[in-house]
């Protein structure tokens, strides 16, 4: 049952991710990316990471992709006209991606814990959000504050970048 759910959602995720890089229209690419993120959230649920799954849908599929769509509409991007297909780019890209995949297969097949079945958690109904919150605010309080500063800096930077003329 779990394997079926995992397979369905990971196949959906990979198919929509392929759609992102194969479709011509930027809006279709963005919608495909949204679906890929939602399917990834479902894969997170099969890993009992409910909080991360919710954040994935809220932040990625919600906020980030709305921003993407907003910019696509703002720039009024049309469907790409078929530019000449550059053979060198495709050959180079194929070599890099193929090399990465073969290196990855080697690493994964050499893993000692290759077929470890998922161990059962001791409290399957535990409050996932509370546990992540404990880890976040007890062990990672300083990084949490720093990430807040990072968000502030990003906000100020975006406002500065978006000004019509920089003085």
């Amino acid at each position, binding site marked *: 049952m*779990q394997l079926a759910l*995992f*397979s369905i959602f990971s196949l959906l*995720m*990979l198919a929509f*991710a*392929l759609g*992102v*890089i194969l479709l011509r229209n930027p809006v279709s690419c*963005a919608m495909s*990316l949204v679906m890929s*993120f939602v399917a*990834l959230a479902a*894969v*997170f649920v*099969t*890993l*009992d*990471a409910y*909080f*991360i799954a919710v*954040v994935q849908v809220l*932040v990625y599929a919600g906020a*980030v992709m709305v921003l*993407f769509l907003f*910019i696509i509409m703002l*720039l009024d*991007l049309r469907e*790409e006209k078929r*530019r000449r297909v550059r053979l060198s*780019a495709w050959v180079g*890209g194929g070599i*890099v*991606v193929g090399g990465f*995949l073969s290196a990855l297969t080697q690493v*994964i097949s050499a893993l000692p814990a*290759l*077929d*470890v*079945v*998922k*161990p*059962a*958690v*001791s*409290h399957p109904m535990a409050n996932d959000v509370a*546990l*992540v919150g404990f880890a*976040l605010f007890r*062990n*990672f309080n300083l*990084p949490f504050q720093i*990430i807040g500063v*990072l*968000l502030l800096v*990003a906000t100020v*930077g*975006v406002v500065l*970048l*978006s000004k019509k003329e920089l003085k």
Partner: protein
Amino acid sequence: MPTLAHYLIVSGLLFAIGLGGVLLRRNILIIFMGLELMLNAANLSLVAFSRFNLLADGMPNYNGQVLVFFIITVAAAEVAVGLAIIVALFRAKQTTHVEDLNTLKF
């Protein structure tokens, strides 16, 4: 039951698709979407490792999930700044096609 290898393979495939998008597409916005895919692939393997390496009390290792939380936050900030840069670029050059942006090319 899916094993750790299943999750790592799916994560690697997702990363490869994102990398392919970054290398092959010419539209700067689609390149940016490829970057997002790669970040998500990293998140997937982190959550998988956190779930498969239980702590002594039998609960998942939540440090991995906190790291994923940080990655999502940084990715959101990165998207905001990157899209602002793309808009500024579009204002200056009227294009999002990377082959038309060759001012710095040697």
